[in-house]
């Protein structure tokens, strides 16, 4: 009020724009800002008109761009203004009706956008609209019921249902809770700051500014949003009676998700906000459930599991979070077997980091490994924890009942260590040359010369050379990189065909049989140094799956190799694109040409690798492989994880599976694209 009439237009503009940015960004504050705006309106109506004009302009822009969070926050803010009396209730209902009209004739994913906007606003405006515009509000609710009913909630079920509720759709859950006739007034919404200013605001007058938006920009493709699935395990009566109603739970989940989306890449700030949120609303279990739900969300979680794990670990230092965290993790791990593989792996990743961050104080009792699938999940979690810290440290922290779950400490196994064997003699000769750091050319010349003292040749020589190299490289990843950098050329010369390339992978697997981490990393580095090529790795993986029909455990590692490879190919394409940009920025024409070629190569390679992978899946599945269940699950995992890269190829892939019993998976996954 003091600065509203300032003559400094720059300062006034700064006030306006900051106010508007705060209103649209701070998702928990619409009622606070509505109260402030209403109080200012009592003495400075022109300034408030300017704010509202700006806000409506932003609302229009967010609607056109399909920005859900900001549009929702503004709509709630306008609803609070309606509650106070600044905005005409009929105008507000009309606004909501217009949004629903827009939802009426659009595609499923655009319809969800408009429906979500309206449904999530209703708890905030329900009382006000019922009181001021009951007939119009009833008409709105009827049309909303019809629209929700026509949604195809079977579009995809990527997180397998493990609770007894029929629907796992977040939008439908929210609507069902809101429209349930026995619903009490949500506690969380009853504390409106404007209630404290009732007397002052009794005389507030309606604004002249009309609350209207246009839908002239028919770029509805931008407004794509499909409500995520909801996994909630927390019932209405949770620890300590945190909430009174299902709607409370839905609102708190939404608030947390909005907070996560607001604090983009600022985990410290997010942690502080969440802690404040928990302390204010006394709902630690629901906050954690919403966070973990985001980890499991398919196809794409907003952030990677590590981001959430570090946020949760930070929250865990506050003792109010510990018990709810233990309860949730203990419950979820019981249901591990019901997750889609991609969600399951994210959960394992998440849990392993959370445990690693508080290894000394972790309460192992909550995850007691008494039954499967818990034991299976815990084995994987421990394997990941062991990759993050020393073996001895983890062993010292584990209770006795967990000891049988931890894998053997990774140690390389070299075949040529048998004393007196020809391999040992030849190995000593090769290792001497490694110790002397001879160049690749000298090494090659030595191995191929007729006077060479090494007796092995062909496949045996390749095998031996790889064993010696990997033994020397086993000290650290830096040693591995140095050895590959120096001797990649030698390996490529010894390796004449694809069969021998596959032999290299066999050697790696035999040396590091008890360490998937080392197998994956060595293959990854070898692709970097062009010792292995992507198509050969794909062929190897599928050949292994085809022949090892009874070794179900091996599938895990084979598919990990495949996932790592696909990720690698994408990154190499990305790297070429980045290098190209850098070269263009400094006008380095040679580098531009070189990187254009590299980008074209890796772009083609990426496309071909994905097509090959799905063709091999097709072959496996149509050959009546006994482990079809695992193979289908892994195929879905790849389709989910790499959905962006597969999108342009999806119709071709789906065509190949047409007419088979697996076609339904691709129809289901179509909604990802």
């Amino acid at each position, binding site marked *: 009020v003091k600065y509203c009439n300032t003559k400094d237009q720059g300062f006034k503009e700064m006030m306006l724009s900051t106010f508007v*940015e*705060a209103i649209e960004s701070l998702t928990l504050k619409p009622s606070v800002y509505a109260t402030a705006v209403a109080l200012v309106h009592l003495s400075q109506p022109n300034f408030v008109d300017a704010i509202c004009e700006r806000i409506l302009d932003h609302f229009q822009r967010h609607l056109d761009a399909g920005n859900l969070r900001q549009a929702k926050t503004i709509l709630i803010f306008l609803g609070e203004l309606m509650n106070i009396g600044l905005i005409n209730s009929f105008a507000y209902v009309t606004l909501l009706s217009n949004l629903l009209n827009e939802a009426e004739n659009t595609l499923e994913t655009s319809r969800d956008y408009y429906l979500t906007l309206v449904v999530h606003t209703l708890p905030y405006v329900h009382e006000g609209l019922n009181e001021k515009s009951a007939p119009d509000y009833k008409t709105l609710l009827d049309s909303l019921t019809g629209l929700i009913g026509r949604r195809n909630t079977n579009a995809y079920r990527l997180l397998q249902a493990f609770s007894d509720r029929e629907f796992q759709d977040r939008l439908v859950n929210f609507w069902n809770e809101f429209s349930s006739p026995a619903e009490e007034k949500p506690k969380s919404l009853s504390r409106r700051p404007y209630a404290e200013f009732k007397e002052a605001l009794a005389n507030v007058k309606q604004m002249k500014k009309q609350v209207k938006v246009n839908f002239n920009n028919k770029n509805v493709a931008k407004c794509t949003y499909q409500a995520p699935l909801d996994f909630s395990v927390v019932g209405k009566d949770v620890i300590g009676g945190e909430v009174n109603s299902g709607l409370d739970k839905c609102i708190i989940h939404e608030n947390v998700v909005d907070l996560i989306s607001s604090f*983009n890449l*600022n985990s410290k700030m997010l942690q502080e906000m969440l802690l404040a949120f928990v302390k204010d609303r006394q709902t630690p279990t629901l906050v954690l459930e919403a966070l973990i739900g985001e980890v499991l969300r398919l196809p794409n979680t907003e952030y990677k599991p590590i981001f959430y794990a*570090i946020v949760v670990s930070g929250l865990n230092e506050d003792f109010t979070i510990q018990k709810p965290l233990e309860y949730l993790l203990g419950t979820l791990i019981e249901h591990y077997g019901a997750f889609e593989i991609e969600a399951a792996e994210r959960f394992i990743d998440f849990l392993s980091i959370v445990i690693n961050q508080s*290894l000394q104080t972790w309460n192992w009792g909550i995850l007691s490994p008494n039954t499967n699938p818990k034991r299976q999940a815990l084995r994987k979690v421990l394997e990941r924890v062991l990759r993050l*810290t020393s073996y001895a440290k983890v062993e010292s922290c584990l209770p006795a009942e967990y000891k049988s779950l931890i894998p053997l400490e990774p140690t390389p196994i070299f075949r040529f260590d048998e004393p007196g064997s020809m391999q040992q003699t030849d190995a000593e000769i090769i290792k001497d040359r490694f110790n002397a750091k001879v160049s690749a050319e000298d090494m090659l010349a030595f191995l191929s010369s007729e006077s060479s003292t090494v007796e092995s040749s062909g496949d045996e020589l390749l095998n031996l050379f790889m064993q010696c190299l990997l033994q020397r490289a086993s000290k650290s990843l*830096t040693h591995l990189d140095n050895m590959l950098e120096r001797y990649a050329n030698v390996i490529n010369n010894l390796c004449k065909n694809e069969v021998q390339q596959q032999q290299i992978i066999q050697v790696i697997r035999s040396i590091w049989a008890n360490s998937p981490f080392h197998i994956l990393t060595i293959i990854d580095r070898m692709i970097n140094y062009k010792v292995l090529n992507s198509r050969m790795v794909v062929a190897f993986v599928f050949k292994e799956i085809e022949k090892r029909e009874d070794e179900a455990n091996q599938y895990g590692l084979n598919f990990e190799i495949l996932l790592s490879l696909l990720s690698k190919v994408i990154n190499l394409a*990305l790297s070429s694109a*980045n290098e190209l940009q850098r070269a263009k920025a400094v006008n380095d024409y040679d580098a531009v040409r070189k990187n254009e070629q590299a980008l074209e190569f890796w772009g083609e390679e990426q496309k071909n690798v994905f097509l090959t992978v799905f063709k091999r899946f097709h072959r496996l599945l149509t050959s009546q492989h006994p482990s079809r269940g695992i193979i289908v699950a892994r195929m879905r995992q790849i389709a989910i994880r790499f959905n962006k890269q597969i999108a342009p190829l999806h119709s071709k892939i789906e065509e190949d599976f047409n007419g088979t019993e697996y076609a339904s998976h691709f129809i289901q996954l179509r909604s990802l694209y």
Partner: protein
Amino acid sequence: MASLYESLRPKSEYIDRRSRLPPEDYQRKLDTSTTVYVGNLSVYTKEECIYEMFSKCGDIKKLIMGMNKRTYTPCGFCFVEYFSREDAAYAVDSLSQAKLDDRVIRVDWDIGFVEGRQYGSCLLY
């Protein structure tokens, strides 16, 4: 939202004065860098553990361990280069103040690894 509180422009608390770059060039390199500096590591922390932790933010292009220039032993810091800037940003945001081997590590933007920067004098602790 975070723009209301602090600038999102990457800034490094550490400045490599040996680079001898003018401030604008230094900032430009930071703005396009895909490399992060990791400090306050335990000298006993294995390279594999660092690799595993940081690969959770994205695929690693290269990991260069800091070494004592006399003894060639780990020195408590390293550089991690990612394929994409987005992944590096994840690392800076998610892993600053995370723990590795019970030590709170420091992760910061870096202008990019250049041969020679891996050697530190480091004090034994």
